[in-house]
């Protein structure tokens, strides 16, 4: 399944998810992947169909996996981790 939309989320949809979105956008640009929409929101908006890929802190991974393909981050600002995990998902 092609990934066209990514949703980054956290508990409140304000601080953390926002930073994740900014970093994911940067990471995608670094990997040369474009045409992917990246957005951020709160855990309440995570449901099947809301996005093709969900990204969150690893502590929220169970909540994300119920809705679809998901990546859990241990360090939400580590560009290496984000890039490595995105690369793995996009290459499948």
């Amino acid at each position, binding site marked *: 399944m092609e990934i066209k939309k990514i949703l980054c989320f*956290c*508990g*409140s*949809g*304000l*601080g*953390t998810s*926002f*930073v994740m979105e*900014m970093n994911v956008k940067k990471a995608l640009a670094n990997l040369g992947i474009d045409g992917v929409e990246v957005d951020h*929101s*709160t*855990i*309440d908006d995570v449901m099947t169909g809301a996005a093709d890929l969900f990204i969150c*802190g*690893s*502590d*929220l991974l*169970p*909540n994300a996996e119920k809705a679809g393909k998901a990546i*859990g*981050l*241990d*360090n*939400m*600002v580590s560009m290496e981790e984000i890039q490595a995990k995105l690369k793995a998902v996009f290459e499948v």
Partner: protein
Amino acid sequence: MRSILNFIQQVLSTPAIFVGLIALLGLVLQKKDVQTVVKGTIKTILGFIVLSAGASVIQGSIIPFGDLFQLAFGVQGVVPNNEAITSFGLNQFAVQTASIFALGMCANIVLARFSKWKYIFLTGHHALYMSCLVAIILSIAGLDGWQLIVGGALLLGFVMAMFPAIMQPTVRAVTGDDSLALGHFGSCCYWLSGQLGKMCGKKEGTRTTEDVNFPKGLSFLRDNTISIAIAMFICYIIVSGVANFTDGANAAEIFEGNNWVLYSLINAITFSAGIYIVLAGVRMLIAEIVPAFKGISEKLVPNAKPALDCPILFPYAPNAVLIGFFCSFVGGIIGLFVLALLGQAGISVAIILPGAVVHFFCGATAGVCGNARGGLKGCIIGAFVHGIVVTFLSAALLPVLGSLGFANTTFSDADFTIVGIVFGNFAKFMSGTGLFTVTAILFVLPIIYNYTLGRKRGKE
């Protein structure tokens, strides 16, 4: 000419448009294309209007709650929630809040550039709430006009750099990393929790929270809207029940003829709905402003650390998050009973009910910090103490909030309450201008330190 000036004045005093202008400036400074500028500006204005709409929804549910509490227990009942009190505060102080917010971010950049506190506070919603608190406190202290805005901005910039600086050693202990900083206004209690954890001590074999087998079924509590609704329902049903059975006639008037259980259910969920709307509004509001802030600060202070929202610490100890929440909540309940006892003893205090958000996000963070320094014991004790302390701090804040002290809600996180209490009480001893001078001096101190004592230490 006069009509143009009038128009400009009207634009500047319409809060929604005013914040839109701030976003517009930020977008233009980043040289974004016209489409992005227009979209971003409109979204910001929209966010503000959504926020105000959310405030009315919250009011609709919390005012009857306050009345019922008064009826049932004879004292003021307060549900602490930052979103709720800020949305009420913005009714009176929107322009001041927006100005302090905008200038405060500039002040943060200045401090990061010229002092040793190289932290840029990127948790937009907390900076917004703190701007509101500062606007309220300084306004009640008698400041207004440019003194209010400049003094407020200096104070905001100061705390935006100071609290992350205080927390950095603890953050290093949690993450094992120095590239992240914590930008969350509950720092005083997280630091306290870390210190308590230190006292518990941690060695090779200490049991940490992650060694505990925690039931996974409780992860639904991570859903903000759900936990707020449930917590509010528990508070509402108890209060309605007592009011219904002790003063049925008056209670029925408040229930407007509805059954007390149904009334409690609907109003509790309405409260959570209002918070959801306010959060949606805040999200839209800061969506353009925070990236602009980040972008500009990266150019001006490239070696500064981003200070981020508390959930960045959660992945390091997910069990500590839930254990911290529970212990903090229990602490909040104990704090509630102590306040009630004080009331019985004749000391007039409002009853602070446990706020779901503060015990969740802040109690969890306190738990993670306590765990990092002192394992499972550190987590439990640190979070529990956090729960009690924030309850008392919220109670102590009410008298300095003026008429907003009767809003049936207030600020919940430790730093908001401490800043409010310190400056609110300072205001009793000094005039408006005196207070302005204090904020100016506070702001300049870290800069002077960096260029004098700090330098000397570096050379030794």
